[in-house]
C-alpha cells in the first residue's frame, strides 16, 4: 500500500533560490501531523507541492500513490483564509457547495451534512461577509469535507480563531484521522500542537526535526527552526500556568 505522502530529496523554489531543500517526508494513513516554522520557512510551499500547485525542481513527490496533479480530486486543500474574498455576496451554503466543483466521480456529502460535521448548520444562510474568523475556518473545513478527501491539507487554520473553535476544529480533524484519512496542518500555535498532535515536522528551509511533539522541548530544535530568536516553547507556557 502506497503512502499518502511520500517525498524524497525534494527541492522547490519560485524561480529564485530554493525555498525548501532536500526534503524527505513520509506520512502514513490516518496520521495527524503538524507543520511548524517561522514565516517564510516553507510551510505553505510544502503544502502547495503536495497538492500539485507547485512543481518541485528536484526530487520525487508521490501523493496517494500517484502524481500530485492526478491525486488532486482526492485531496482537500484549505488555503489561508485571508487569500479568499470574504466580501463577495455569497452565502455560507454557496461556499460549502464549491467543494463539489472538479470532483466528478467521487461520492460527495450534502452541504448540510458537511456543515453539521463542524457544528455550523445554523450558518447555512448567513452572508459570508458577516462571519468571524472562527466561523470562516469552520465553513472552509465543511467545504473540504464535502468531497470526502483521503488527504486533508490545512494552511494556518488556527490563525484568528478563538480557543473554543480551535478545540472544535481539532476534534473534527482527529475524527477524520481516526477513519484512516491523513491530515497535515501548518500552524504557528506551538501550544496547540502540543495539546492536539502527536507528530510534528519543524521546517526552516529544510526539515529541521520530524517526530514526537516532545521534540519541541528541545532548545536546539526550536533554535534551528526559528533562527536566533526562538519563541517561548510551548512547555514554557505550560510551566507558567503551573507557577
Amino acid at each position, binding site marked *: 500500500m502506497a503512502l499518502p505522502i511520500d517525498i524524497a530529496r525534494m527541492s522547490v523554489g519560485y524561480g529564485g533560490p530554493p525555498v525548501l531543500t532536500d526534503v524527505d517526508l513520509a506520512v502514513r494513513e490516518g496520521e495527524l501531523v503538524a507543520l511548524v516554522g517561522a514565516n517564510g520557512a516553507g510551510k505553505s510551499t510544502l503544502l502547495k507541492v503536495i497538492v500539485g500547485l507547485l512543481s518541485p525542481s528536484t526530487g520525487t513527490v508521490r501523493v496517494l500513490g500517484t502524481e500530485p496533479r492526478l491525486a488532486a*480530486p482526492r485531496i482537500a*486543500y484549505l488555503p489561508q483564509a485571508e487569500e479568499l*474574498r470574504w466580501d*463577495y*455576496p455569497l452565502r455560507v451554503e*454557496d461556499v460549502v457547495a464549491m467543494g463539489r*466543483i472538479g*470532483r466528478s466521480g467521487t461520492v460527495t456529502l450534502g452541504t448540510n451534512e458537511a456543515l453539521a460535521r463542524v457544528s455550523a448548520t445554523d450558518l447555512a444562510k448567513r452572508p459570508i461577509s458577516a462571519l468571524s474568523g472562527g466561523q470562516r475556518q469552520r465553513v472552509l473545513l465543511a467545504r473540504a469535507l464535502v468531497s470526502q478527501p483521503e488527504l486533508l491539507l490545512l494552511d494556518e487554520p488556527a490563525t484568528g480563531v478563538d480557543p473554543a473553535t480551535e478545540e472544535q476544529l481539532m476534534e473534527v480533524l482527529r475524527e477524520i484521522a481516526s477513519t484512516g484519512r491523513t491530515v497535515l496542518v501548518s500552524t504557528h500555535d506551538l501550544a496547540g500542537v502540543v495539546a492536539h498532535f502527536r507528530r510534528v515536522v519543524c521546517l526552516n528551509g529544510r526539515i529541521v526535526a520530524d517526530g514526537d511533539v516532545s521534540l519541541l522541548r528541545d532548545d536546539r530544535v526550536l533554535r534551528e527552526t526559528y533562527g536566533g530568536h526562538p519563541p517561548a516553547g510551548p512547555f514554557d507556557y505550560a510551566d507558567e500556568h503551573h507557577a
Partner: protein
Amino acid sequence: MPDLLEPLHYGFVIRAIVAASIVAIVCAGVGIFVILRGLAFLGDAISHAAFPGVVIAFLLKTNLIIGGSIAAIGSALAIGLISRRSGLREDATIGVVFAGMFALGVVLFGRIRTYTGDLLGILLGDVLGVTEDQLVIAAFAAIVIVGALWFFRRELIFVSFDPTGAAAAGLPVLRYDALLLGLIGLAIAVSVQVVGIVLVVAMLVTPAATARLIARDLPEMVRLTVGFGLVSAVAGMYVSYYVNTASGGTIVLVATLFFALTWLARSARRGRTR
C-alpha cells in the same frame, strides 16, 4: 403624460430599444464579474482597444461588431498574457495596450477621407442607426455570452472567490480567466454601437455597482443588475426620444442616477438604524 406607445410606431425606435436591452443584459452578465474582480479599468481599456478593429472593419466594408470584437478580445487576452509574462503590474500593461490600440485607431481614422458618420457613431454611440443585421449579430453574441456565463457560473465564481483553492481542486484557473476576458471583450463589442466606445464602461460597471450596494447574495445581485440595466436602457431611450438628447449618454445618465439614489437610500437607512 406622453403617449408611451407613440415612439414604437417607428421601426428604428423599436430596433433601438431592442438593441439597448440586449446591451443591458450582456453588460449585466459580465459586469457582475467586472465589479467582483475589480476590473473596471480593464473594461474601459478593452472598449478603447476595440476602436482600431472597428475602423479596419469600416475600411474593409465588413461588419463593425465583428471587427470590434476581434480587436477587443485580442487586446483582453494580450493584456492577460503580457501581465503574466512581463512581471509588470496589470494596470501598467492595461495602460500600454489600451493607449497603443486607441492610437492605432486614431491614426487609421485620420486616413479616411470619406464621410465618417458611422465611425463617429462608434465613438459616441448611434443606437438609432442600428440595422436589422446588426441586431441579429448582437442577439447571437448575447446568447453566446449569457449561455457561457450560465454554463460555467459555478467555476467562474470559484476561481474569482478563491483562485488558490480552485487551482488546488484541479480547475484550469488561467483558462477560466481567459474565458472571462473573452466574454468581456465580446460584450463590449456588442455594446459599442449603442452607447459608444467612450461610455461602454458605464454599462459594464454602473448597474452592477448599484446592485452590489444592496444585494445580499449572488442571485439577488444578478436580478438587480439586469433590472437596473434594462430600466436604464429603456427609460434612457424614452427620455432621449422626448427631450431629443443623445441616446447613449442619456442611458448612462439614467443608470448613474439609479446609482446615486440607491447609494443615498442605503446611507439614509444605515443612518437611521445606527
